């Protein structure tokens, strides 16, 4: 120990320089690690900025008023299901068709809302109406086609379908199903 102390005393300048070197190496290490950490953070933030710029470009395209208005205009002719069950309209519609196609409506029983049905990912209320008719098969065919094509003239019936049908040569029974929003 004494020898080391003597050695340091005899080489005081050298000792000071070595101490400074050790301190500077330590400082270099600290600053190097700090700069690496900042570089990593910069790379991460650069990616975030690129994403943000991309999202802005997407949003500018997606929420462009002119484009949205054009898209809305193109969709405005889209048929939409009726808001509620068109009970009176359906009665008139069936009566008018029966007269035109020489069909006799033997009975007509509205069943009301019987449940819901999912169509294209949206749930709609299902309204059933049981119908019994008489007429020859050609008249029945034409009458059913008239009912099914009803949406061409009246948007109330674009969701009309015929189910549970049973026919003989002189007529038959079927259920008119109409889907409505509520």
């Amino acid at each position: 120990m004494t020898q080391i102390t003597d050695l340091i005393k005899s080489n005081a300048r050298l000792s000071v320089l070595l101490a400074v070197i050790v301190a500077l190496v330590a400082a270099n290490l600290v600053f190097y690690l700090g700069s690496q950490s900042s570089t990593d953070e910069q790379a991460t933030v650069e990616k975030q900025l690129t994403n943000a710029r991309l999202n802005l470009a997407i949003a500018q395209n997606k929420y462009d008023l002119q484009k949205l208005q054009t898209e809305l205009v193109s969709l405005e002719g889209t048929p939409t299901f009726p808001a509620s069950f068109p009970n009176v309209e359906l009665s008139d519609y069936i009566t008018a068709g029966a007269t035109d196609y020489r069909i006799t409506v033997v009975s007509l029983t509205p069943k009301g809302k019987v449940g819901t049905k999912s169509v294209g990912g949206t749930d709609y209320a299902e309204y059933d109406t049981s119908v019994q008719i008489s007429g020859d098969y050609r008249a029945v065919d034409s009458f059913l086609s008239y009912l099914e094509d009803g949406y061409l003239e009246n948007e109330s019936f674009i969701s009309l379908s015929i189910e549970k049908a049973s026919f003989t040569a002189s007529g038959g029974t079927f259920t008119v199903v109409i889907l409505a929003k509520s």
Partner: protein
Amino acid sequence: MNIDINILPAELRPKPLIDTKTAVLIVFILLLGFGCYYFFQAKSDSQAEVTKMQSEIKTTQQQIDALKNDPDVKTLVNSITQLKAAKQSYDAFVASRVLLGNALDGVYSLAQGRVNITSIAQSGSTLLVKGTASTYTNLSGYASALDNDLRFSVAGLPVFNSDKSFSLTVSVELGGGR
């Protein structure tokens, strides 16, 4: 031959200001000092850049929010979403429904001259056709005619009984035809 003419003993002779060892150490210290400065500066530059970019990200996000929350845009997007949902529902409905009037027309018209139909019962997209046929050949011809029609597919063999009655199961193509 070298002749040393310095008569002063070595201890009394003037020493150089710094020896080589010390000079090397000083150069090394200077290099280390430069290294410290370089890394510190690099860190400061990175941090300044990060702060600048974070500010830009914030501004960009604000611009996106402003675009999204524009009342006109909200109204339009809402209307478009509703109409798209309506269109999706309508398309799905049209593609999945059985056009019974059209189907019955096909079933009856193809029967002409082949078989006599007494009843037709619908269950979903399937029709159970019952009637009479004078021969099995006529019934088979009727089944072939139905199967060749784009609106139908005959399921299984037609059943033909000894009393000339038959039953035939027909699948109706959804949406009006294959």
